[in-house]
């Protein structure tokens, strides 16, 4: 964990809060300075999606499409066919929501690299209500062939994800279309500019080292004198792994800390890339812990929970299958409220995660 350089203040109440979408706006601007083929297209939400930073610096490379998301997607495809690298933005509900088929056919089926940034995802959009809270967008994008799906956990990671997405595969990026999921509200800054980010790689954001694990074993009343390090896991065996994405990674970290205090060893993985999913990492923690909990601000069906379920069921032998609990939205629409009220109503708080861990352990 020492090599991932997380923000040292993550567990403090005054941890810095920045909207994830802001990182996208900054990343786009940086990338556009380096790559003059980048163009920006927006559907009447330039400031909300933070594309205004790019528009201001490169007015000639910005195209205002108006409130017309289907046109937005297909115009971008045409521009990509001529060698441009288009970034398109709207609220996630409208792009990739409203224009899903245009994205599927004119972008993905055509295999044109377009970067689709969907802002205002999740119920934490708040008072605008259910029509504006995209909680199906991961599901509908990850089923499209050729698509990459990224859900950054904070503004710093969003900036990196944006900049890496703009690169070609040979440069450490990708040649596929990319969907980047962004949130509206301010959320805690978890990572730093030194935290590694790679498309398709999950990162361990919380785990116990040997000293903390031995302490925890003592607390549980287990004798540690005969304790033997597990060679598979380079040390210790965690009781559970929490696989989280987006701003809720912060709640997952708080839950892991609380669980450690209560004598349960939890590991937290940041699943920034939903597709391609880091199968190796998922199977490895499944084997280590036998108990997984997924956490996402999205429908369980088809989201990270669905992706992890598919992966462990198809990837492991009978007997190695972990138990799985999913924290997220259970087949409901969103509604108006403050972000905090809604995170509570839909069961995605720190205590909901702790409770899900306990359910998983009870079923183990």
């Amino acid at each position, binding site marked *: 964990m020492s090599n991932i350089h997380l923000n040292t203040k993550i567990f403090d109440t005054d941890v810095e809060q920045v909207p994830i979408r802001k990182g996208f706006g900054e990343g786009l601007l940086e990338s556009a300075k380096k790559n003059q083929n980048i163009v920006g297209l*927006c559907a*009447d*939400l*330039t*400031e*909300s999606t933070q594309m205004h930073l790019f528009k201001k610096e490169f007015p000639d490379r910005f195209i*205002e*499409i*108006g*409130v*017309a998301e*289907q*046109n937005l997607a297909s115009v971008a495809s045409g521009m990509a066919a001529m060698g441009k690298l288009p970034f398109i933005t709207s609220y996630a*509900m*409208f792009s990739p*929501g*409203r224009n899903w088929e245009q994205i599927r056919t004119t972008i993905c089926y055509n295999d044109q690299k377009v970067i689709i940034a969907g802002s205002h995802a999740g119920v934490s959009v*708040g*008072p*605008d*209500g*259910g*029509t*504006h809270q995209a909680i199906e967008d991961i599901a509908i994008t990850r089923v499209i062939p050729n698509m990459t799906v990224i859900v950054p956990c904070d503004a710093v990671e969003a900036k990196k994800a944006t900049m890496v997405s703009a690169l070609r595969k040979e440069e450490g990026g990708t040649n596929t279309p990319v969907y980047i999921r962004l949130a509206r509200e301010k959320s805690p800054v978890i990572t730093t500019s030194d935290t590694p980010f790679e498309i398709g790689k999950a990162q361990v954001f919380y785990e116990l080292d040997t000293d903390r694990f031995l302490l925890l074993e003592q607390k549980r009343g287990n004798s540690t004198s005969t304790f033997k390090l597990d060679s598979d896991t380079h040390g210790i065996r965690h009781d559970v792994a929490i696989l989280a994405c987006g701003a809720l990674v912060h709640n997952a970290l708080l839950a892991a800390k609380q669980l450690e205090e209560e004598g349960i060893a939890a590991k937290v993985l940041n699943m920034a890339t939903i597709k391609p999913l880091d199968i190796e990492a998922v199977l490895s923690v499944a084997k280590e812990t036998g108990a997984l909990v997924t956490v996402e601000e999205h429908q369980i069906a088809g989201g990270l929970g669905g992706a992890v379920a598919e992966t462990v069921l198809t990837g492991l032998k009978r007997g190695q299958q972990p138990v799985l609990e999913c924290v997220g939205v259970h087949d409901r*629409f969103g*509604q*108006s*409220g*403050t972000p905090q*009220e*809604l995170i509570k*109503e839909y069961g995605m708080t720190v205590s909901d995660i702790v409770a899900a861990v306990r359910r998983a352990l009870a079923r183990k």
Partner: protein
Amino acid sequence: MFITDSEVQSLEEQARKIRVSIIHMLAEAKSGHTGGPLGMADIFTALYFKLLKHDPKNPSLDIRDRVVLSNGHICPVLYATMAHAGYLPIEELLTLRKFGSRLQGHPHREFLPMLETSSGPLGSGLSQAVGMAIADRIDHGKVSPRFIYTFLGDGELNEGQNWEAAMLAAKEKLGNLIAIIDRNNIQIDGYTEDIMPLSPLFDKWKSFGWHVIEIDGHDMRAIVAAVREAQTIFEKPSVIITHTIPGRGVPYMEHRFEWHGTPPGISDISGAPAKADQVKEALRALGE
């Protein structure tokens, strides 16, 4: 003549009260859309207090006219008008956008079943209204007692689905369909003609086969006359392009696209009083 002077005066006073409610509810919610709702208060008043066939005490009255709010973000004017017309307690307006409220940030029928449709995502209301009009004609032929009204934003017309629905409505000769466009010249990113020019809007609808009426959307007499005219058109859908001033009644908001989606009291916008004074000043301008 469709309306007497004293009726005009009482409708204008009703519209003023609705604007005052809009300010109160947005100030309390601390989020939501201001420009469009203030601009549309006169038309909503005329519709709900004079033109519509409806019964606030019996919202599911079978022969009621239908109102489809396609530009769902202007729901503060719909909720306020419905409350003043007797559908909801006026105090309930202060629950706008709060957790558990029937008055969701964008209209949701699951919370408020007396709404004909849920909306917020732009561009699909006209299609739903066309569907209602076709269904009504199947049931009642050309002599239906109902009209289907739908409200559309001008920026909303950027969505291609409107024009798909416009073609279908003309093809189906939907004389029972009346679309009302809020021609306020603003959308989120700026003025409509800078973002996506709509002009010549009259000619566009005419060429799509609609009966087109263009009016000053703050003139009660013109509003009433336009709706009555639309009701007489037999084998064509009608569209009323109502020229309105966004933010109408609050001078510091008028014509400013910056007030599209911001309530008074939370942000400093050039040309407006300081945040702390915005609500008070808006209410003062509205004669409170």
